[in-house]
C-alpha cells in the first residue's frame, strides 16, 4: 500500500486553478464591449446550434467559454433562477449583480470541493442599463471570483493579448458597426504577432443588449445579412430589427 502524499492547500488550489485555466485556454475567445446603445457580444463560433452567447432575462445576457456542457448547465440554471425570481417578486428585481453572485457561489463551491472537478469555464454576465453609465459587466472565473468590468472584456484563449488591444482602442459612444469591427479585429489578431486572420460572418456569433429596443426583452441576435452589412461598416444596419423578431432562433 502506498503512503498518501501530503499536498499543501496552496498547492492543491494552484493545481486546480491551473487545470481550469488550461481547459479554458484551449477554446476561442468571446469579446464583450459597450457601445452607444448597449452592450455587444462577439464570439468566434461556427456552430449555429450551440451558442456561446445567450439571453437570460429582460436586460441580462450571458456569454461563456470553456467546456460546453458545463457552461450550458450554468446557463440553464441562470435562466431558471431569473425566471423564478421574476415570478416570485417582479421582473425589475432580477439583476445581473444577483445572478453573478449566485454563479460565483456555485463556481466557488465546486472549485474548492474535493469530490468535484473544477469547472473549466469563464463566464460573463452583463446587464444593459437606461444609460451607458448604468451598464454592468461581470466576469466570473472558475474559482468563483467576480470581477466588475468596464467597457471591454475578453474571456477565453488569448484573453490577455486581445484585452490589451481592445483596452487601448475602445472609447465611449462607439456605433454598433464600429464596436463590432473593433471586436472582430481583436479576435482575428495573432497572439504571436503574425498577420491577422480573416473572420467571415459565418464564423461569428453576435448578439446585443440594445437599450433602444422597444420590447421588454432587450436581447437580440444579429444574423445573416444584417451582420454582413454591419461588418462592412454600414452603421445604418444597426437600426434594422432583423427577421428574428424577439425570438431566439435562426
Amino acid at each position, binding site marked *: 500500500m502506498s503512503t498518501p502524499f501530503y499536498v499543501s492547500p496552496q498547492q492543491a488550489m494552484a493545481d486546480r486553478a491551473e487545470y481550469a485555466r488550461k481547459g479554458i485556454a484551449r477554446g476561442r475567445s468571446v469579446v464583450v464591449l459597450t457601445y452607444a446603445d448597449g452592450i455587444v457580444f462577439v464570439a468566434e463560433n461556427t456552430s449555429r*446550434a450551440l*451558442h456561446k452567447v*445567450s*439571453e*437570460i432575462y429582460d436586460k441580462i445576457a450571458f456569454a461563456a467559454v470553456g467546456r460546453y456542457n458545463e457552461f*450550458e*448547465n*450554468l446557463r*440553464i*440554471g441562470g*435562466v*431558471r*433562477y431569473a*425566471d*423564478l*425570481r*421574476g*415570478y*416570485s417578486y417582479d421582473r425589475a428585481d432580477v439583476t445581473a449583480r*444577483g445572478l453573478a*453572485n*449566485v*454563479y460565483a*457561489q*456555485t463556481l*466557488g*463551491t465546486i472549485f474548492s470541493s474535493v469530490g468535484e472537478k473544477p469547472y473549466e469555464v469563464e463566464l460573463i454576465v452583463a446587464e444593459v442599463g437606461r444609460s451607458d453609465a448604468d451598464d454592468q459587466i461581470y466576469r466570473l472565473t472558475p474559482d468563483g471570483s467576480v470581477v466588475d468590468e468596464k467597457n471591454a472584456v475578453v474571456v477565453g484563449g488569448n484573453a490577455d493579448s486581445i484585452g490589451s488591444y481592445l483596452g487601448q482602442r475602445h472609447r465611449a459612444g462607439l456605433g454598433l458597426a464600429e464596436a463590432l469591427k473593433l471586436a472582430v479585429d481583436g479576435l482575428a489578431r495573432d497572439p504571436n504577432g503574425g498577420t491577422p486572420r480573416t473572420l467571415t460572418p459565418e464564423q461569428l456569433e453576435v448578439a446585443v443588449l440594445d437599450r433602444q429596443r422597444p420590447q421588454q*426583452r432587450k436581447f437580440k441576435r444579429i444574423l445573416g445579412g444584417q451582420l454582413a452589412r454591419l461588418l462592412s461598416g454600414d452603421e445604418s444596419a444597426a437600426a434594422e430589427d432583423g427577421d428574428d*423578431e*424577439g*425570438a*431566439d*432562433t435562426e
Partner: protein
Amino acid sequence: MEANLSGTGRLPAAFLTPGSSSFLDFLDSHAPQLLPGRRPLPEGMTVEAPHGTTIVSAVFDGGVVLAGDRRATMGNVIAQRDIEKVFPADEYSAVGIAGTAGLAVEMVRLFQLELEHYEKIEGAVLSFEGKANRLTTMIRSNLAMAMQGLAVVPVFAGYDLDLGRGRIFTYDVTGGRSEERAGFAATGSGSVFARGSMKKLYRDGLTGEQAATLAVQALYDAADDDSATGGPDLARKIFPIVTLITEDGFRRLTEDEVSAIAVSITDQRRQHPNGPQAPLL
C-alpha cells in the same frame, strides 16, 4: 430555495439538472407551493371572488383580433370597472380570460413565463399547437378550484407563423381544447349574446380594422343583454381592450383607436339601438 432567492448561496441541484425546458415542470419539482393548482382548499366551501366576464375573438385576413370588456363582478356588485383580461402570451399570440380574476391573472403570468422560458432554454419558439397544449395543462391543474366556483376559462388566439394565418382555440374548465374553425369565438357570461351578434356580422375577408369593429359590436351586444358585461363607458372613458395579432406580431389598439370605434358604434346605435341589421334572406 428561500436562501437562494435572497441572492446568496450556491444554486441548488434542481437548477443545474438538465432535462425539462418547461418552467411549470421546474416549479413542480422545485417549488410546488408556487403553483396555483397545488394549494389546498377547504372542503365544501365556495369562495366569493371577482369574476371577469366576456372575451371575443375573430379571425380576419392576415391575423386575428382578441378583445375583452372591462368589467369584473362579484355577485351583484361591480367589483372593478377597468379590469384588463386580454394579455399578450408572446410575440405572436394572446390570451383572454373569463372567470375568477385573481387566478386568471396568475395563470396568464405563468403561461407567459412558460413560453418565454421554453424559448430561452431551447433557443426556439414552441409551435402554435404546442402553446395551446401548455395552456390545456394549466387549466387542467386548476380543475379542483373550478369545482369550487373558481373557474378560469381562456380563449387563446394568435398568428400561426407556419400556416400563415390567425387561429383561435377555446377551452372548457376541464382543459378541453377546441379550435374554432368558424372564424370567431366567445367565452364568459356574455358569450351567448356576443356569439349571436358575431354570427350575423362575421364574414370572410374582413380587414383588421373591420374585425376590431366587429369585436366591439359583439361586446356591445353582450353588455346589452348580460348584466355582468360592461359596455363602452363614454363618461369614464373606459373602453374594451382590443388587440390585433398579425405577421408583425402583437399590437394592442391605443385608447384613442378603440374610443373612435366605440363612439361610432354608440352613435349608430342611437339610430338603431339593436345595431346593424342583417338581411332576412
